[in-house]
């Protein structure tokens, strides 16, 4: 499971960075979204991966991550998702405004000279 998750984070992050470096605003938006997914999965993975574990410390067992799952990263991810979603929406609006004002979807608001 670790290898699948790390591959997913890596692929998402790499695609995100490549897209962010592209000159079209929509590609940048997509890149930022993909990077956001990669970061969210990364935070999630920091709570240590386990299947079927409860976020409850059982009396008698030592309170290590072998015996329970950490609920805090999920709360952090939730916050990060909400903020990221709002920022993406805002970016989309600005993107459309720039498209309307400058008649181009280049991030600089003007086409590069050929």
């Amino acid at each position: 499971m670790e290898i699948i998750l790390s591959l997913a984070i890596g692929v998402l992050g790499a695609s995100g960075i490549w897209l962010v470096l592209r000159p079209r605003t929509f590609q940048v938006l997509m890149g930022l979204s993909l990077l956001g997914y990669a970061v969210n999965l990364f935070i999630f993975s920091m709570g240590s991966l386990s299947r079927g574990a409860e976020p409850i410390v059982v009396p008698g067992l030592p309170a290590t991550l072998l015996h329970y799952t950490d609920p805090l990263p999920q709360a952090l991810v939730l916050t990060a998702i909400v903020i990221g979603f709002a920022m993406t929406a805002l970016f989309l609006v600005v993107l459309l405004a720039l498209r309307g004002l400058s008649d181009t979807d280049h991030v600089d608001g003007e086409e590069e000279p050929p």
Partner: protein
Amino acid sequence: MISWLQSAMPHLIVVPVVLPLFTAAILLLMGGRRQWKALVNVASGVVGLLVAIALLDWANARGAPGAIGIYLPSNWDVPFGIVLAVDRLSALMLVLTSTVSLATVLFATARWDRAGVHYHALLQIQLVGVNGAFLTADVFNLFVFFEVMLAASYGLLLHGSGRPRVRAGLQYIAVNLLASSLFLIGVAILYGITGTLNMADMAQKFPLIPQDDRSLLHAGVAILGMAFLVKAAMWPLNFWLTPAYAAASAPVAALFVILSKVGIYAVLRLWTLFQSTEAGPLALGGDALVYGGLATLAFGALGMLTAQQPRRLAGFGILLSSGTVLAVIGFGYAAMMGGALFYMLGSTLAASALFLLGDLIERTRRGEVAPAVHDDEADRVPFYVDLPTGIEVPPHGDAGDDEQGLPGRAIPATMAFLGLSFVACALMIAGLPPLSGFLAKFVILTTLLDSAHAPALAGGVLMSGAGWTLLVLLIASSLLATIALSRAGIRYFWTLQDRPVPHLRAIECAPIAALLLIAGALTVGAEPVLRYTQAATTSLLAPAEYIGAVMAATPVPNPVRAPARPAPGAVP
């Protein structure tokens, strides 16, 4: 005063966050009536400033090097709940923020708040984020306040709209979203290793980290640092700053000067905590900060030479100040850092005043051009009733209720005021005598030179190559800034023979004059202020007290109702 402060004290800490939050909510609900909105905004700003001054007074009156007030907003035990902490540095930053924001609000009431919707509410939300970032002692809470601050700043940057602003806004948002991603990755790594989000607890746990995890820890701290340094505008992470700030409307740009200080504050706070002996052997970042700061200083000085407009000059002036402060922080030497903090106060006020002044100067050069007034009827923005379409807004439009009688009054000797203010800004930014910029640079340079004679004073590291480079760059950057600013001054003021004298309004001149007078007061009262900043940095560099105070905070016990009778089934 003191007894009143003591009784209000633990709760006063949360006021700088809660007050702007409620003000923003009220402003959103108020609908139209721009004059009333401006009045509420100014009133809230005044109260916020008074609270910040009270906190500063409290922190200063405690005498001990570390006067730290702790507030537990949700009344949870310390490592689990969020903690707000105020110490000298936080209190100082709060006062600086309140001062600058109040000045920009006053300036904006003259005309700029009519250039778009919800200027006043956005400004208050911006204050929530900035004040919260200065107060919180929790890394994830710091992220949330950063995001609040950035979200409001996106709105403010786009205030007034127009193609240059939207273009700059798009790039500004993209850069800051990337920085936020880095912030989250850094926080996640630190949480994964230490299992805590509380800064003090984290610093305490660092010595317990096994050697195998150290490299991961270093990576986490470095990634987190990148996020802060983007905000603090360290070279090469600062190319976004000048275009964005130059495109913003004048009062917004003047407020944004504070935003880069938030980055510097975060670096200062976390770096001193993580670098301390309590955190164990974790020598990281010092060199990077020094060299990055030096590069920023050089870049800012060269940039000033290329700048043509006053607002671009001010933008590069911010880089100059960021570079100086970051490089000095990197040396980690209390006396120098105290000087750098003092320098940061003056340069913030001066850069802010220069942004406001730049607006007036550009208006002078182009003749009277009123900013595009937002056409509310056409947009049908809810909660917003204002000027009927088709009515020309007079150049000297309505102001707040408290400024009746001032509108339209041309101040005599307008050009003299503009020129004198510009000279004062230039002296502050370039660090020339007699203003406080010079005193601050003098403190930094003397400390550097003193350490050459007494190497034991600073562990013998100050007079290394980096120390000499800082010395040379500080003087050279002063020279370059002087050249750039005097060239600009000649162009703005001495080549304007045949143009009409502009009409300025008192409400626009007052904030600039106030900012510069405070900068002048810093010069006169340099000794107590320097003593304060040095005490602040001394306690920063010995954070045992901060860690102790944060960790020792206990929640208020729940009110226990006296049991009238034993619960049923209770065994006596």
